[in-house]
């Protein structure tokens, strides 16, 4: 792996950029910042935050491995990016690192969701990604939380308090939003609306999962994995138990960090 060197896994995603520092198998620190429109600036911010928090200087870093959709964009002189790893490879590695008995990871991110299938060494075997019509689930979730007047975490907790099964159309985030707002205007309880929103997202993710056989054990990663209602519905739809990885948002960054020292793919 990294022979005890201090390395950075940098996951530059559509919506958030994650920096995570590891030495050996130990995770020293991590930080996620919104990518905004300037992914290099976001990477700098995240990285600086982590090095400050753990009390080291950037010179002590052996190198940075970048992943995520913008992994090439962050290869600037200021950031010492020594190699890049495609995000699905990093996700598989990271998931395997966090859970050695896992063989499938479903990563539900800010704009894209994907699923990776890997072998008993964490090597990628297969990957699928969502249809374009199902883009933007994370953004949608943020939007809906604000619409109800809650934080994302509060909305996740609220969804679990639902007592009534309500449906919304699931074609895409536009349908779902239209109908969720309609439910609110009908006076339907916010908890039931929050749960309907979670069900919509789980339907889209589950639909993607039909393209690839899911091998046990199945783990869930990405920002949206932090919604227990979503995970619960997803598990019911794919008819399998799933567990949420620790540090679900950082799975890609972990996978990148542990790739340090390997040859560039």
């Amino acid at each position: 792996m990294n022979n005890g060197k201090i390395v950075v896994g940098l996951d530059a995603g559509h919506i958030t950029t994650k920096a995570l520092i590891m030495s050996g198998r130990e995770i020293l620190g991590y930080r996620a910042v919104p990518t905004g429109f300037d992914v290099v600036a976001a990477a700098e911010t995240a990285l600086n935050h982590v090095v400050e928090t753990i009390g080291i200087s950037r010179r002590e870093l052996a190198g940075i491995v970048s992943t995520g959709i913008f992994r090439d964009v962050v290869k600037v002189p200021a950031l010492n990016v020594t190699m890049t790893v495609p995000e699905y490879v990093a996700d598989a590695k990271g998931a395997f690192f966090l859970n050695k008995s896992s063989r499938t990871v479903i990563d539900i991110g800010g704009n894209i969701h994907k699923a990776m299938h890997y072998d008993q060494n964490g090597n990628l075997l297969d990957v699928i990604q969502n249809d374009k019509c199902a883009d933007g689930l994370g953004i949608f979730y943020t939007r809906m939380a604000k619409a109800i007047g809650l934080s994302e975490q509060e909305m996740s907790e609220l969804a679990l308090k639902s007592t009534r099964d309500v449906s919304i159309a699931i074609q895409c985030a536009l349908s779902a939003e239209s109908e969720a707002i309609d439910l609110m205007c009908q006076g339907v309880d916010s908890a039931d609306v929050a749960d309907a929103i979670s069900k919509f997202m789980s339907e889209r993710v589950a639909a993607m999962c039909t393209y690839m056989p899911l091998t046990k054990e199945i783990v869930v990663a990405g920002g949206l994995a932090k919604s227990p209602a979503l995970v619960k519905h997803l598990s019911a739809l794919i008819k399998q138990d799933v567990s949420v990885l620790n540090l679900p948002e950082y799975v890609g960054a972990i996978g990148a960090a542990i790739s340090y020292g390997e040859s560039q793919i």
Partner: protein
Amino acid sequence: MDFVPILGVNRKDGYWKMSEYASINNKLDWTRAKMIAAGVDSGAVSSKAVILLDGQPYAWSHVTTRTPKESALRAINAALAQTDLKLEKIHTIVATGRGRTQVPFARQAVSEIACGAAGAVRIWGPSVRTVLDAGGQSCKAIHCTEKGRATDFLWNDKCAAGIGRSMESFADLVKKEVSEIGNISLQSDKFPKLSDFCPVYAQSEALDLIRSKIPVEQLIAAYHYAMAKRISTLVARSGVKEDFVIIGGLAKNPGITDRVESILKVNRLAPKPDWDPALTPALGAALFADSFSRRQQSDTTYGARMSGIQSC
């Protein structure tokens, strides 16, 4: 008249919250008014209230919607907070907007189509024939007579839902104020093309443009153009007859309004300096409330009529 921000922009939530405000015309005295009427517009993204004294705008407010019931109350209370007028003293309140059935203190509900038309003609005058209500959740093209009576409308199809709200989350993504992005978008004439049919596709494509390292101003212009095109398609399908006005939250975004005008090749009547176009349906609702009150006073058989609908 000034727009006084009573709640301000909460920067900690990102560029998300629209400014909430309330305003009042202190030249009027409610204790001398014969007729006090109010309209409440319970919209998907924001709730607005307008209070009229003998048909003149007296107090108004604009707050973010959380749940319709709670936000309608907050809107009317924000308007009232500037005076010592109490809710009970308002003779008639009419609710409009998507959440109008959730406003318990309103006596009547009238659609935002009729209210948008009535409010628009009141503000811009009898030459108005087409009103584009570009709101947070839905867009409607409304046709009306010189008296402000709606004669036709086209509601957005689902593929054009939530354009207003998508502007807010887009502003968040590019870390700008939603009130600024319109002007920023007008700084670029050349910009990449994004899907002008589907906001979900446009948003995704915009995110991918981060890779191209184009200046953020161009990206903002690209997204505005795509959304303006989408809205224009809707209006064109309904047909535009001059004079044309734009109301709703997006009316305050020149990046949208300017482009809608140039795509449709028709100029809107300029917004009035003393009037927030987003308040137009609430004003229309208040006008209905005013008229219901007056008819009730002069018509003893009013109660026997069903639904209180009067012909014009």
